[in-house]
C-alpha cells in the first residue's frame, strides 16, 4: 500500500495546533506554579522539626505519586462534582496537575534541601538569623541552585503531561491533533507536526532553564 505525504491538510489547521500548544503551556505554567508552592511547603515540612508536618508531607507525596496522572485527572473532573465541587475542565485539570507536580517537586526540593551544608546553616544561626530568616535568605537560594537541573526535568515532564488533558476534552495540542487526524486521515503528517511542536516547545523550555542556571553563581 502506498502512502504519499500531504502536509497541506495539516497546515490548513496549523493555527488550531498552535492554540492547542498555547493552552497546554498555559495549563502547565499555572499547574507548575501552584505545584512549586506546594512542593516548597511540603519539602520544608519534610525536613523540619515537626513530626505531624513530616507525616503530612510524606502522606501527600506517597498518595499522589502512586496514582497515575490520568486517574487523578478523571477523579478531579468526574468525581469531585459528585461531592459538590464543580470545576470546569481547565480548572480541574490544572488542579490535578498542580497536585501531581507538587508531589514530584517536593522530592526535587527535598533533595536540594538535604544538600545544603549543615555548617552554612549554623553560620547563619551564629550571626543571629532566626530559623525563618535562615530558611529564606540562606537555605532556599542554595537549595534552588542545587535543585535547578532536576527542576528543569520536572518542568518539561509536566508540560508534556498536559497532553493528558485531551482525555477530558481540553482543546490542547494532543486533543487538536486527534481532531485533525480524524477529520483529514493524515495520520503520519498530523502526529509528526504535533510531535515537532512538542519537541520545539521542550527545547525552548530547556534552553530557558539553562539560561537561568547560568545566571546563578557557581558553587
Amino acid at each position: 500500500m502506498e502512502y504519499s505525504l500531504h502536509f497541506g491538510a495539516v497546515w490548513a489547521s496549523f493555527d488550531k495546533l498552535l492554540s492547542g500548544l498555547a493552552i497546554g503551556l498555559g495549563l502547565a505554567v499555572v499547574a507548575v506554579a501552584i505545584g512549586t508552592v506546594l512542593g516548597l511547603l511540603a519539602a520544608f515540612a519534610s525536613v523540619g522539626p515537626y513530626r505531624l508536618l513530616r507525616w503530612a508531607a510524606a502522606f501527600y507525596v506517597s498518595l499522589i505519586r502512586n496514582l497515575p496522572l490520568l486517574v487523578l485527572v478523571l477523579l478531579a473532573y468526574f468525581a469531585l462534582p459528585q461531592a459538590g465541587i464543580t470545576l470546569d475542565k481547565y480548572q480541574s485539570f490544572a488542579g490535578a496537575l498542580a497536585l501531581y507536580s507538587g508531589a514530584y517537586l517536593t522530592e526535587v526540593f527535598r533533595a536540594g534541601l538535604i544538600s545544603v551544608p549543615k555548617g552554612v546553616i549554623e553560620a547563619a544561626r551564629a550571626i543571629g538569623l532566626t530559623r525563618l530568616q535562615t530558611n529564606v535568605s540562606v537555605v532556599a537560594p542554595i537549595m534552588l541552585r542545587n535543585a535547578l537541573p532536576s527542576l528543569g526535568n520536572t518542568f518539561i515532564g509536566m508540560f508534556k503531561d498536559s497532553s493528558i488533558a485531551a482525555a477530558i476534552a481540553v482543546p490542547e495540542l494532543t486533543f487538536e491533533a486527534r481532531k485533525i487526524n480524524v477529520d483529514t486521515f493524515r495520520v503520519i503528517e498530523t502526529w509528526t507536526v504535533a510531535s515537532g511542536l512538542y519537541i520545539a516547545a521542550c527545547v525552548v523550555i530547556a534552553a530557558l532553564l539553562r539560561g537561568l542556571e547560568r545566571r546563578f553563581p557557581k558553587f
Partner: protein
Amino acid sequence: MSDKQHPLLAIRGLKKQFGATEVLKGVDLDLNKGDVVSIIGSSGSGKTTLLRCVNLLEEYQGGEIALDGETIGYRSGDGRRRRLSDRELSRQRAMTGMVFQSFNLFPHLTAAGNVMLGLRKVLKLPKAEARAIAENWLARVGLAARADHYPSQLSGGQQQRVAIARALAMNPKLVLLDEVTSALDPELVQEVLNTVKGIADDGATLLIVTHEMRFARDVSSRVVFMEQGRIAEDGPPAQIFGAPKNARLAEFLRTTRH
C-alpha cells in the same frame, strides 16, 4: 577592667552529653572584656563542644552560661529548665560571633554579601550602611579588592578572612574561633593567624580553640587546657607552656611540640 563580680562570659558547671557519652563534665570558665583565651587539648576533650554551647548551637544538660550578666540559652523557673524561644536564642547568638573551622561562607553571596547579611537581617541596617561596614571590615582583613567575589573564587585563607569579617562586623561582645586554621593549606595559615592577632590587638574579646601552640602562646592572655570534658589547667601562657603543673598537659605538650 577586671570586674570579678561581672565577667563578660561566665560559665558555671557546664555539663553536656551526647546520648550516654558525657562530653563536658562540669566546666567553669570566666572571661573578662578584652581577654584572649585559648583552649588547647587533644581531640575529643570537649573544646569545640564548649564553644558551640557558648554560641547556643548545642543544647546542654546542666550548668549555666552568662554573657555580660545575662543568662543565655535557658530559662529556669519553678524548678524547671526550659530552652528559650528561637527568637530569644537568635538575639543572644547575635551577641557572640563565631568563626568555623570549615569557613561556612554563604556560597550564593559575595564576600560583601556574606558580611552584609547579618547587618541587614539581624541589625536591620539600611543597605548602604551595611555595605559601608562590610567594605570597611573586608579592608581590615585585607580583602577590599575581593568584596564582589564569590566564595568559590577565593582561596581558603581568603574565605576564612571573610568569615572573620562577617563575625566581627556584627560588633559582637565575644568572638569564638573554632580551629580556624585547621582546614587550611600550610602556606595559608599565617595570613589567617595574623588577622586574628590584629583583632586581638584591637581589643576584641576572643575565645579560641586551636592546635597552633606557638600562636596560642603569642596571642593569648590566658591558656586553658581541657582534658576529658574538664578544665585541667588554666593559667598564663608562660605557666601553661613553660611550667605545666598537670601531668597530662605536660604529656600533651610533649606530643604536640614539633
